[in-house]
């Protein structure tokens, strides 16, 4: 089995990339066993990392931040002024969320987050990014035609709304504070958090007052 990869165009002829998942699965399995044999990795650490992002850290973290901001105006001010400190009040932060900035969507301003160069994403509050966020179609067009991208997500913005796209080219990770939907005045923080979707915190969707019919 060939586990090697190319290091540049000049080596492209020497190795074959195989995009078939079953082959990738075999390659990763062989690589894992090699690295265990060499003492470079502990499989239990891999289990712990996977468990962290499958079960502990994900968009529910961000949803709690948003719901707190919707119900506590002093917290919202702190969140917009110094996101790291405010997010830490809820116990979140750390890896790929060390330097956070929160941008607020209003009736007049719509923010959208992208990483055109790779896949930078606020893991600490949203977990690992979805495939579409890391994909060429989203990365290429979000900066060029954000309104067209939003239409693909089913969101047609008025011409008067100002669109602000944030390209995560450095160490800052962005989170969108979506607009609180009307008709949610009686809901408590926990009920509000249940309405907040991952997509609304990236900026490709609005939050709906009902959980039904929402996207991810």
């Amino acid at each position: 089995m060939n586990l090697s990869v190319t290091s540049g165009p000049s080596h492209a002829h020497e190795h074959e990339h195989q995009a078939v998942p079953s082959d990738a699965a075999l390659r990763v399995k062989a690589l894992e066993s090699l690295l265990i044999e060499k003492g470079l990795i502990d499989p239990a650490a891999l289990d712990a990392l996977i468990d962290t992002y499958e079960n502990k850290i994900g968009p529910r973290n961000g949803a709690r931040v948003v719901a707190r901001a919707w119900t506590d105006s002093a917290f919202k001010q702190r969140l917009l002024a110094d996101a790291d400190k405010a997010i830490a009040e809820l116990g979140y932060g750390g890896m790929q969320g060390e330097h956070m900035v929160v941008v607020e969507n209003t009736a007049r301003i719509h923010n959208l987050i992208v990483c055109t160069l790779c896949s930078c994403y606020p893991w600490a509050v949203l977990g690992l990014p979805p495939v579409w966020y890391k994909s060429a179609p989203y990365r290429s067009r979000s900066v060029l035609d954000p309104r067209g991208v939003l239409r693909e997500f089913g969101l047609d913005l008025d011409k008067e709304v100002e669109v602000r796209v944030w390209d995560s080219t450095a160490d800052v990770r962005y989170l969108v504070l979506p607009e609180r939907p009307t008709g949610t005045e009686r809901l408590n923080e926990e009920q509000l958090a249940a309405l907040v979707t991952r997509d609304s915190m990236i900026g490709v969707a609005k939050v709906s007052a009902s959980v039904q019919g929402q996207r991810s």
Partner: protein
Amino acid sequence: MNGVHDMGGMHGMGPIQHEKNEPVFHERWEARAYGLSMAIGCLGKWTLDALRHQIELIPPADYLSMSYYEKWIAAIVELMVKNGLATQTEVETGKAAPGSSKMSPALTAAAVGPMVHNGAPNNRNVAVAPCFHRGQRVRARNLNPTGHTRLPRYARGRLGTIERHHGAFVFPDTNAHEGGENPQHVYSVRFTARELWGGTAPATDSVFVDMWESYLEPA
């Protein structure tokens, strides 16, 4: 480098494929690839900037056809061989060479929680004051380095306005190439959509790009 990874502003990449109720990992090998890449990265043999650059070095046709974690594994293997963690033969056979040194200590399960919780902040204290201030007009330099850079092509040569000073951060252009951290001030720079894409772009819209100071010059 002016690679295919620098795709902001390109056409023709197709529709966005949104998946409802998408799992964190679609297949177990992706989860293992993720964990493996993180765990081996913790050994400190290379920087995250070096990993990003190694992914950029994947030839364009492969870059566009490989899945996300296939690219990670390809880059990790290359970095392991470059940095002496494994030989090409070991990687190809999946077996450790007889008598090869056993490295330790590996990242343990107990260390994962603190690692995730603490993160790895890249901000640094620098003695020099920032060159630019909020509201100042700047131009993104027209730089075309062959190595790693975080200055996207679509912004080069364009006029923008300093929106925010983020502090000083490790400079990826050197840190990816064992050239040291060389921290610099980083700013959020606002470019109008019309400045970037011409007169047909909506006058209301803008793109904010985070930029190290040496990417910028006064306008």
